[in-house]
């Protein structure tokens, strides 16, 4: 099972990762981040994540701190 880790303290809510994920596994969370907007969270109930790291590559704030591939 592939998965990613997001550091909520680093996320600035630019949502570039949302667009980058080919499986739309990242969505807005309920958590308000440092910029006053909702941060993002990883939710992969169907184990779709392939660990491609595209989300991490586009994140300008090194908020996606880990990508683990099965």
């Amino acid at each position: 099972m592939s998965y990613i880790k997001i550091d909520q303290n680093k996320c600035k809510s630019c949502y570039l990762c949302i667009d980058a994920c080919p499986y739309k596994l990242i969505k807005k969370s309920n958590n308000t981040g440092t910029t006053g907007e909702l941060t993002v969270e990883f939710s992969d109930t169907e184990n779709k994540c392939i660990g491609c790291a595209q989300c991490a590559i586009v994140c300008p704030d090194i908020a996606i701190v880990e990508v683990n591939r099965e």
Partner: protein
Amino acid sequence: MQVYSIPNSIKKDSKFTFCKGCDHGVAIKIIAEIIDELNLRENTVAISSSGCSVLLYDFLDIDCLEAPHGRACAVATGVKRAHRAKGEEKFVFTYQGDGDFASIGLGESMHSALRGENITAICINNTNYGMTGGQMGPTSIMGQLTTTSPLGRNKEYHGFPIKTAEQIALCEGTKFSARVALYDVKNILKAKKTIKKAFECQLKNKGFSFVEILSSCPTNWKLSAQDSHKKIAEELTKIYPLDIFKDTIDD
């Protein structure tokens, strides 16, 4: 298996202070990855400059020296030559804005290229003076609205912008000059490959290497991160084409 983690050359617990969605963060991250991959961390002195890039030393876990606005290539020249005088080759690169490299510092930048100074210069082209609030800079495009071109850049009144990577490629001492962008994964990976090549140019002791990075400035462009990337992809790359303008590393 962990396939991605924060590069070792980024300071632990470091948090970028750029505006949200700003490409500076991506640029610094890929530079850190290359430093890791080429195992340069312990032999590098980086030169930061005035502009949004100034806090480089807060993010990179390598030796860093801040240059006065525009003088990064001259400072890098001094660093490189001084270590050489002791018989040591340090890896020396600058990280500068477009205003820093191509306006106030154009003399220092171009003469470093002309001399074939064996350093690497990275220039973040966000088409304005970002740090001071988005004024018209040397790379602001025709028609661009900035705080000092409120009616849009106009050739009669303001004159023309500079195509930095093309100009630097013309210098005899330049061995590598390219322009890249960071607006999607494909381009980020390509940018990384290109910067790596520029770094290797220095490691092979070939001469001046230069990479201009077309970067977003969502704050001063007053666009979202997504729309900024769209603007780069659809508008800026037409004016500032992505290409390698010179590669004579292996000549």
